[in-house]
């Protein structure tokens, strides 16, 4: 037995195999030589009626608040998705991975050349956007793509570019299919050489009205980089002392003594 065959054998018998296991089982059922005769005959149209039926059963279970049954029904519905995915990849229309890649495509479709997709990695999609559009893009991400909270906001200082980058890592709790996905939204502000505390000219629009969870994160970026978030209701210091009068400490030109 080759290694590839061995791997596929293992994943089919692994009860925790998750979606890869389902995809593997489905591709075996659809194998023209060794698959199941009934499964091979099916087409998009012949499956469509089953999908409607399963969707009704899901809605029915929700109506009756029958959570045990809902679990089973959702599994049946997922199998339909896997079925279409398998048929689609046989015909070369799409694969399961490309369904996930859709996230970046949707944003590109909406905003065109206002944004740049900086990378698409496993579970991470990087989006670069100007500060004029960051508010709209974030609103779209929340309303249309079901992302609901910000995990991390990090500032990165680029004195060589005379810019400060602020990176938002946006995730989703409410949509289980996006649980492992993060959108990495980056935007840049002009870097002011001599920041005056409380009168910062390095400014970005706040995302606090879209994602409530950025409140303390943006306060931290404000004190550590001197980026003033316009529209943030509470632009105060958080970790530093109130009377800190030096440069914002995470800027590159704030040097540690003796280093």
């Amino acid at each position, binding site marked *: 037995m080759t290694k590839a065959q061995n791997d596929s054998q293992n994943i089919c018998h692994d009860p*925790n195999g*998750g979606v890869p296991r389902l995809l593997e089982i489905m591709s075996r059922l659809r194998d023209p030589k060794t698959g199941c005769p009934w499964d091979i005959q099916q087409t998009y149209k012949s499956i469509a009626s089953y999908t409607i039926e399963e969707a009704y059963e899901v809605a029915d279970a929700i109506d009756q608040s029958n959570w045990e049954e809902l679990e089973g029904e959702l599994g049946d519905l997922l199998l339909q998705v896997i079925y279409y995915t398998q048929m689609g990849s046989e015909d070369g229309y799409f694969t399961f991975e490309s369904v996930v890649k859709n996230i970046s495509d949707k944003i590109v479709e909406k905003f065109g050349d206002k944004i740049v997709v900086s990378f698409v990695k496993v*579970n*991470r999609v990087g989006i670069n956007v100007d500060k004029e559009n960051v508010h709209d893009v974030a609103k779209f991400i929340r309303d249309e793509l079901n992302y*609901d*909270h*910000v*995990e*991390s906001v*990090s500032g*990165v*200082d680029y004195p060589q570019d005379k810019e400060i980058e602020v*990176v938002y*890592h946006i995730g989703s*709790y*409410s949509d289980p299919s996006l*649980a*492992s996905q*993060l959108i*990495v939204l980056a935007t840049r502000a002009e870097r002011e050489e001599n920041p005056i*505390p*409380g009168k910062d000219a390095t400014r970005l629009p706040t995302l606090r009205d879209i*994602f*409530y*969870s950025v*409140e*303390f*994160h943006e306060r*931290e970026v404000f004190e550590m980089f001197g980026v003033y978030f316009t529209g943030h209701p509470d*632009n*105060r*210091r*958080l*970790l*530093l*002392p*109130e*009377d800190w*009068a030096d440069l914002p*400490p*995470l800027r590159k030109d*704030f040097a*540690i003594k003796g*280093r």
Partner: protein
Amino acid sequence: MTNEFLPPGLALQKADERIMTLNVGPQHPGSGHMRIIVQIDGDYIVACDPDPGYVHRGEEKMAEYRNYITNIPHLERPVIHDSCNVLYPYVLGVEDLLGIEVPERAKYVRVICSELNRCIYTMYWLAIYGIFLGHSTMFMWPAGDRELLIDLMEKISGARVTHAHFVPGGVRNDLPPNFEEVCLRQINYFEKRIKEYAAVFYDNPILISRTQDTGVLSREDAIRLGVTGSVLRASGVDYDLRKKEPYDVYEELDVHSNVMKEGDSYARSKIPWLDMLESCNIIKQALEKMPKSGSVRVKLKPNPKGKGFNSVYKRVESGRGSLGCHIVSDGKVEPYRLKLSVGSFRNLIALPYLLKGEKLGNMPSVYWSLNYWPVEADR
């Protein structure tokens, strides 16, 4: 002097005769190393402003001046009881940047260390929760029982806390001889022991009356505030990174995430305890499935991607929820920028929200149920 000329944070406020401002902290214990500025009307809290930062040590700035290996000992300082978990995303991130594949045995050793550390941290947290509520038995028992696991970590790494055991490419040393047997024995005893806590603490009517229905966080608000870890799962959101985005060998292990729907202080204090029982279960599985021999560390090679900017964001489920590490590298031996996104800092946002309208006497139980570690939040 009007507010206009004052730096932010020093703005003056008009005094109100009815409302009293009370500074809780920053002395330790009582609030941890932080100050909570509460405004009270009689016995009720009308506003709360958490003021962390008293133990801010600039871990992120320090990381920019040290190379990737010498960063290891100081990066675990934010939570010395949970040091393996704090280091975990950093190590995963560096491995991702270098494109290193870690040996199978090292992955299992990491999972065992990480779960042991989760229990060590949670026991300490539970001890403080006990003393916050004036339950001194619950201080003595966890503080004593965690020694069992600290002994195990000492056998593995040589240090009781701050193990510095994870390194990019694996773990520093292999397990000592005969470890599996000793570990299984200790874990079995530990599991039996923490089950006894139910009778004295979690089923105790006094604890229940003090924590049930106080500081209720609904599911919608938990999502909106972006809280994480036990606070999130106590509000009915099933989100555990060990299941949702499995790292190392978690996908080969049967992990059950504990979820409760109540969202009150009682649920928030019970979830970490249930997690400890689950950790025991995971350690037993890992001991069974772990390859019995083999390498535990691969040698690092020079950065194959060369110079130029590159970034990575890795996250793990720590004792206090999701812990992320964002590393920006410019190809040199030091990180260009390193950001730790920690569970404590993310959960802090819920504090003003939960305390509003609560009685002052409930403040300690609500505050510590957030699974908050001040030193970690300050970094």
